[in-house]
């Protein structure tokens, strides 16, 4: 089985979000990590590899620095890494990104593609399903459990209060939730090997099935009008009450504001 896992390098929001004066993210000022949902997707792929045997290829699109997340993936146990990077691909929205990644995946032999549900910087959850559309293969999103049976996958798709069990014939694409698993750590030896490993780098010229109309900022239908940080709220009102009094106080407030 050949599995392609799409990962994204994202700013670590735990340390706070930093903005440039123009409202875009100041990525240089923030630590970069592997997107958590993508890491769960990678772990799912590595578990399938442990269980059934598989070749796991990690793929990312981004700045040359994004190679860091590929090295992390290799140090966790991935077999191959591909970095898609080119200035003309910069500023891509989900459409341009998915078009580009799909063009890269077309160059590969695959049975299963796993992406994270969504990235913590954009939170669109669109790129995974869009890739499947470009490649014309089935997609199962929000996976909380993945099993392989013959040439099919059986996936639990999470809903708010239940889950659906779906079966799809490979090749197909699955989007993974961070709740899917607890990703493994790297190993020290894995890190040493990953730093010595060759990372395949593809630019625009390598992606022959890609249309120039669908790349970079120009090929992105999404236009960001404005971005801002969360509006800071005041300290609020603090009251010290017995539990019973607190309940009636809260109910009063909720009624007052027409919330209930």
């Amino acid at each position, binding site marked *: 089985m050949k599995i392609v896992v799409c990962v994204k390098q994202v700013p670590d929001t735990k340390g706070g979000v930093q903005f440039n004066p123009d409202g875009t993210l100041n990525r240089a000022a923030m630590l970069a990590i592997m997107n958590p949902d993508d890491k769960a997707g990678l772990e799912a792929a590595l578990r399938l590899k442990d269980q059934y045997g598989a070749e796991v290829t990690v793929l990312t699109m981004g700045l040359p620095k994004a190679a860091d997340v590929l*090295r*992390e993936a290799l*140090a966790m146990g991935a077999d191959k890494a591909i970095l898609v990077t080119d200035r003309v691909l910069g500023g891509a929205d989900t459409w341009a990104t998915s078009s580009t990644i799909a063009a890269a995946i077309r160059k590969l032999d695959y049975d299963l593609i796993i992406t994270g549900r969504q990235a913590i910087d954009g939170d669109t959850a669109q790129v995974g399903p869009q890739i499947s559309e470009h490649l014309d293969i089935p997609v199962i999103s929000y996976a909380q459990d993945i099993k392989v049976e013959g040439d099919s996958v059986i996936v639990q798709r999470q809903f708010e209060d239940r889950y659906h069990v779906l079966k799809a014939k490979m090749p197909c694409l699955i989007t993974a939730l961070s709740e899917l698993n607890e990703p*493994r*750590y*790297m*190993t*020290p*030896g*894995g*890190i*040493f090997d*990953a*730093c010595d490993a060759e990372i395949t780098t593809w630019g625009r010229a390598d992606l022959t099935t890609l249309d120039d109309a669908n790349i970079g900022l120009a090929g992105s239908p999404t236009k960001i009008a404005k971005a801002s940080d969360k509006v800071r709220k005041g300290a609020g009102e603090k009251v010290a009450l017995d539990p019973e009094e607190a309940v009636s106080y809260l109910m009063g407030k909720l009624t007052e504001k027409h919330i209930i």
Partner: protein
Amino acid sequence: MDFGLDKKHEMARTLFKEFAENEVKPLAQEVDETEVFPRATVEKMAKYGFLGIPVPKEYEGQGCDPLTYVMCVEELAKVCATTSVIVSAHTSLCIDPILTYGTPEQKAKYVPDLASGRKLGAFGLTEPGAGTDAQGQQTKAVLDGDEWVLNGSKCFITNGKEADVYIIIAVTGIVEKRGRKMKEISAFIVEKDTPGFTFGTKEKKMGIRGSSTYELIFEDCRIPKENLLGAQGKGFGIAMHTLDGGRIGIAAQALGIAEGALDRTIAYVKERKQFGRTIGQFQNTQFQLADMATKVEAARMMVYKAAMAKATQKVYSVEAAQAKLYAAEVAMEVTTKAVQLHGGYGYIREYDVERMMRDAKITEIYEGTSEVQRMVISGNLLK
């Protein structure tokens, strides 16, 4: 000269830090309080290769260098000194001498199990009457046919009852050197559950309380002839060379304890308010922190330098002794100041610095006291 870490070591640092924070730190207080050996943590460390970091891959190790191993011990010690010394004693005192002095058969038999963490290692040199004074050794090994017969005891042995493979130093005869009768000392590999090998009492300690510190007892303990490690009579040199490596591990432990105490103190002085301001706003606090941080940085340079010396030099006794001497004294000083800056809370067990100050003390004592390190360093100066 480049003092920065390369990509490999940066990534390794990230790994050890994450592991220490997520898997080790939450248990540190409990391990200290209950004095229970953290077996589950050791199994996790085994899974991720932490028990064979500087060991070649052909022996199921990670194929990394001494610096990577030292950074692992350091990061573990930042959150739990007990956990760090388990790795240090196992790697430096048991695997290293087998790799350095073992026959191909001994290496093939013992190192893969140790490096993968399926088995844990320990080292027995110290006796009730012989710590620093190796000639005071009483444990004897006598060759009887195809077996060595061990009699005697070893005390204060780290990983004591939890280990599976032990390097044991014993007297194998009397030889004449420059007209003086000297004990001939040899090294052996002894496996747990060998008949005649039992454990004495568990030591109750001031610090590193989860570490399994036991007395080892040998009563007509028969081990195969081929378990002699290195040549007969070379045990003293093996023990000393092994301790050179071990001292780099303990220096890393001391460094980690000091760093851990400094980190917690920085966080505390930003929070704690007295006389209407945080205590970090008082110049006394600022100057204390500046001294602590400077000494920690100096210790780090010496520890890393010693690790690099182990990777590139045949003899690194002085680098190891200087790193251990300095890092251990910095650990004691920094943790003592950390407790002082925490005031009354620093004396309470709920605060990590209380444990760290107790843990720091052992680094000035085991694997050669600070006085022994000074002997090693000055001996080299005046030779």
